[in-house]
């Protein structure tokens, strides 16, 4: 130690000043660096999330035309390896010249496609169907087209195609409204005559055929052995003018004569129609002419008689609307495999290309936060099930995840707050300084336990134990708090007499032995209690009585494990707030004759309340952001139940599970980052508020003459 009174030599002082300035600079820079880093994370997350809410767009441009365009084209395809043109006479061309003639002696009237794995079907004016197979890369093999007869007398007016088990189903309508179908399997192709006329037809999955005649909407079941039975009939109120199943063949979009667009779903058992509660935003009041299914993301286009065009998503509704390239309905429309480009051939014969930019169209505030009726489900539900293969209906509700996060945090707080606050009160107000100096670091040391370790132990050992001894565990939660109160009371009764004989330890330490006895009693007596009150099986009884299921990995376990993890934070902050209460306050109260309990309850607790509140807030912030414990202890089941005995899935755990394999830049990826942003904002706000409260509290203590 240098003596401050002796003046150090000048150069030394300058050096010290310089070092001091340097230190100030470094500290300031680090502080600013931290703030900048935090802000940068926020900005990065926001930028990654924003594209989710970009509007969808449909852009129209004139597609490259065939070199010897004679204006009689029927359809145009965009393939991976170039454009194909088909004339009405069935001549197929690419940029180099003619490839194949597909309609000898007849004209092409209609075209149907069903994805990359199924053939392409051309309906001809002589009642025949030409089927163009695909190779294993999904490329059409035009020269290997096969011919099948669908109608004897009249030409094909409309065709619809869908894949089925080991093959495909094709249904057609002739110029008079007669309906027939072909079911192709590996062995045979069978023709099915449907004894009912229809104006519009659409094929769904597993041979479900939707047909309309006026306002009648019928569901037929075709079968691979050549038969067909009507399953359900519904009245749509307004005459139907357009019809299409969306990819997957379980959702039917129906356009009507007044411009209305509605969604009908197959019921979960595939035997009836299930109407959607709400209809889509209408384009106008003229009849809907076409509904065009775009593969992927359940997107579709609707065109009405006035040439208005709309882009819709099955769940999030209208995403874009504008004018169609031509006012008259197109003669042919073909969609590329990814649903991003539509070739549109109108009356003028010039093909138009529609580029559809709707990468995240499945996401809207309603799909994120409102319950939705998903395919195969009877009721509207909140579900999180990120798309896996790209073909299924995405279920992007953040509600189950937010619910799981809050549920886990809430149960953790239920466990941690009484324990941590009790411990803090006891050590701040009752313990001697020496005891406190030992206890506090011990509890704070618990914070060093990594979440993974707590999660591992709780998930693999505690969860099976609690499952086996559920009644015992629940008995513990009742017995221990009641028992400790009872012990405290007994202690008071006998303490006068015992005081002299017992070593001078405090009541708190003395409680340990009776508490351990209580735990042991609760655990060993509970099997009898269970047999006596609950018929031997508490879990079965709970299910019978209240319909509660018991999952091994549940909120109870996560509450205990995460509670343990946040106790040190809570304890240490609350203890700080309590012991920071200026001594003159407590001493004054005691001097005026108040008991210790009265002083604690009436003076110290109210004075420290803001500090305790901020401790609770910081604890909650930690519980919300905790990842590893929730990940390992819960089953990560995105349920929406408040039950203590069922699992949950939190935003943070979801991020840890799904982010590594999410396609970068995809909808799921951005939604996961949206979850991260929500967590970030939540913890940021909560922690900032808590810090502000603490800061104001410190100022108040200083005013009362405290030293904090």
């Amino acid at each position, binding site marked *: 130690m240098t003596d401050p009174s002796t003046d150090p030599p000048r150069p030394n002082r300058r050096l010290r000043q310089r070092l001091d300035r340097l230190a100030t600079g470094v500290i300031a820079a680090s502080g600013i660096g931290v703030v900048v880093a935090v802000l940068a994370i926020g900005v990065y997350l926001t930028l990654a999330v924003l594209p989710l809410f970009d509007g969808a767009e449909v852009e129209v441009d004139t597609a490259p035309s065939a070199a010897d365009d004679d204006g009689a084209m029927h359809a145009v395809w965009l393939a*991976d390896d170039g454009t194909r043109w088909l004339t009405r006479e069935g001549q197929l061309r690419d940029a180099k010249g003619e490839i194949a003639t597909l309609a000898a002696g007849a004209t092409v009237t209609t075209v149907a496609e069903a994805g*990359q794995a199924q053939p392409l079907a051309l309906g001809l004016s002589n009642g025949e169907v030409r089927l163009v197979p695909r190779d294993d*890369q999904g490329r059409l093999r035009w020269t290997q087209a096969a011919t099948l007869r669908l109608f004897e007398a009249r030409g094909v007016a409309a065709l619809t195609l869908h894949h089925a088990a080991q093959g495909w189903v094709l249904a057609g309508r002739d110029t008079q409204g007669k309906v027939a179908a072909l079911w192709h399997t590996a062995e045979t192709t069978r023709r099915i005559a449907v004894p009912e006329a229809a104006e519009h037809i659409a094929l769904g999955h597993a041979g479900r055929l939707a047909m309309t005649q006026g306002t009648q909407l019928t569901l037929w079941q075709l079968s691979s052995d050549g038969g067909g039975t009507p399953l359900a009939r519904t009245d749509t109120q307004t005459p139907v003018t357009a019809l299409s199943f969306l990819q*997957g063949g379980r959702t039917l979009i129906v356009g009507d004569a007044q411009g209305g667009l509605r969604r009908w779903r197959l019921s*979960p*058992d*595939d035997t009836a129609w299930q109407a959607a509660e709400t209809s889509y935003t209408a384009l106008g009041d003229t009849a809907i002419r076409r509904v065009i299914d775009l*593969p*992927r993301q359940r997107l579709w286009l609707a065109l009405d008689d006035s040439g208005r065009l709309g882009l819709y998503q099955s769940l999030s509704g209208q995403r874009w609307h504008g004018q169609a390239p031509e006012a008259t309905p197109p003669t042919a429309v073909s969609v590329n*495999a*990814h649903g*991003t480009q539509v070739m549109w051939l109108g009356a003028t014969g010039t093909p138009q290309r529609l580029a559809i930019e709707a990468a995240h169209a499945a996401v809207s505030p309603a799909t994120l936060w409102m319950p939705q009726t*998903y*395919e*195969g*489900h009877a009721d509207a539900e909140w*579900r999180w*099930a*990120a798309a*896996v*293969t*790209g*073909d*299924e209906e995405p*279920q992007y509700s953040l509600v*189950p995840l937010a619910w799981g996060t809050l549920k886990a945090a809430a149960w953790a707080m239920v466990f941690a707050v009484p324990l941590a606050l009790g411990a803090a009160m006891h050590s701040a107000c009752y313990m001697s300084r020496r005891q406190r100096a030992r206890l506090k670091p011990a509890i704070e040391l618990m914070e060093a336990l990594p979440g993974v370790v707590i999660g591992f132990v709780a*998930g*693999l050992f505690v969860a*099976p134990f609690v*499952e086996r001894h559920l009644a015992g565990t629940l008995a513990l939660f009742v017995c221990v708090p009641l028992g400790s109160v009872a012990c405290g009371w007994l202690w008071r009764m006998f303490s006068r007499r015992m005081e002299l004989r017992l070593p001078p330890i405090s009541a708190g330490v003395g409680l340990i032995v009776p508490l351990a006895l209580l735990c042991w009693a609760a655990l060993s007596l509970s099997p009898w209690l269970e047999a006596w009150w609950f018929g031997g*099986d508490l*879990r*079965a009884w709970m*299910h019978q009585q209240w319909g509660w*299921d*018991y*999952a*091994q*990995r549940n909120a109870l376990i996560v509450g205990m494990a995460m509670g343990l993890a946040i106790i040190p934070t809570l304890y240490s902050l609350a203890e700080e707030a309590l012991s920071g209460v200026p001594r003159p306050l407590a001493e004054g109260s005691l001097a005026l004759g108040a008991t210790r309990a009265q002083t604690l309850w009436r003076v110290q607790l109210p004075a420290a309340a803001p500090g305790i509140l901020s401790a609770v807030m910081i604890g909650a912030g930690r519980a919300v952001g905790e990842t590893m414990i929730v*990940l*390992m202890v819960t*089953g*990560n*089941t*995105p*349920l929406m139940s408040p039950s203590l005995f*069922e*699992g949950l*899935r939190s935003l943070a755990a979801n991020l*840890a*599970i*799904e*982010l*590594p*394999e*999410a*396609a*970068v*830049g*995809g909808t799921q990826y951005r939604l996961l980052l949206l979850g991260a942003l929500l967590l970030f904002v939540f913890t940021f706000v909560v922690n900032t508020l808590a810090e502000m409260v603490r800061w104001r509290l410190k100022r108040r203590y200083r005013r009362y003459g405290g030293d904090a």
Partner: protein
Amino acid sequence: MTLGALLLPMMAMAAPLSGTLGSVGSDTLGGLMTQWGERLSARHPQVRLQVQASGSGTAPPALAEGATRVGAMSRPMTEAERADFIARQGYPPVAVPVALDALTLFVHRDNPLTSLSLAQVEALFADTRFCDQAPTLRRWGALGLDGDWAKRTIARFGRNTASGSHALFKREALCGGNFRRDINELPGSSAVVAAVGRSRKAIGYTGLGYPTAMVKVLALRDDEGTPRLPTQANVVSGRYPLTRPLLVYVNLAPDERLPALERAFFDLVLSPEGQAVVARQGFVPLPEARLAAARRALRLPPLAGDTHSSSN
């Protein structure tokens, strides 16, 4: 082998092979890729394989951006990922099957159940009934177990959403339907096995090669009702229903030949030596016909005749 041994020095003389081949992708395939990398370095001392195994989902973007030419995936690319690749590279990527994997269903070792039908699998794991209309199963009694087992509720365990196993299970066993929401999704196959091994009422699924003595693997009944265990023979023949190929995608223009490094890599992977690694890692080696087809697709020289490969 003998033919390969003869060919190798000749190739080496023509152009001594050196360099680093990067691979990005699936963690299921991570162990296999590393092993193949070691063998590749043994064959060509100056060649290194750099494996980045952080998940199947990381392969498509890396391939599309041209950051890597080789991407390992435990599931096929989705249409969107394929479309993205085509948009940037102008042609589709080539998928090379390198091994076979199967999904195994298993229960606690004390569970008397031995086999399940596919309809029961759907009823156990799905909320939807896209394959069949089987009723919901709540207790083991509904699967025909009696005694204590009849009353036990069924606890379901599975892999996480992002894994290839999850995707395959969804597509094949649930017919594209939705999983029940109360399936415990655990990170990692071994965690699923451990959890099922510790709970008598549990059932779970993972890929091949994970089940331990704590659990009992169930047979699946095929269309005729014959129970099929996921044995190597049943996986190869496809009689076990839930099988999948493990894939390595390679960026290869339609008219191009494989560059030398990739060529050496695939020549190793699609050889008896490379396939022996597959078997050791608990997966199923490709049957000879598929191996030969994969070699043809990459224009690799056909393997030496059967007599050669069986002699060593």
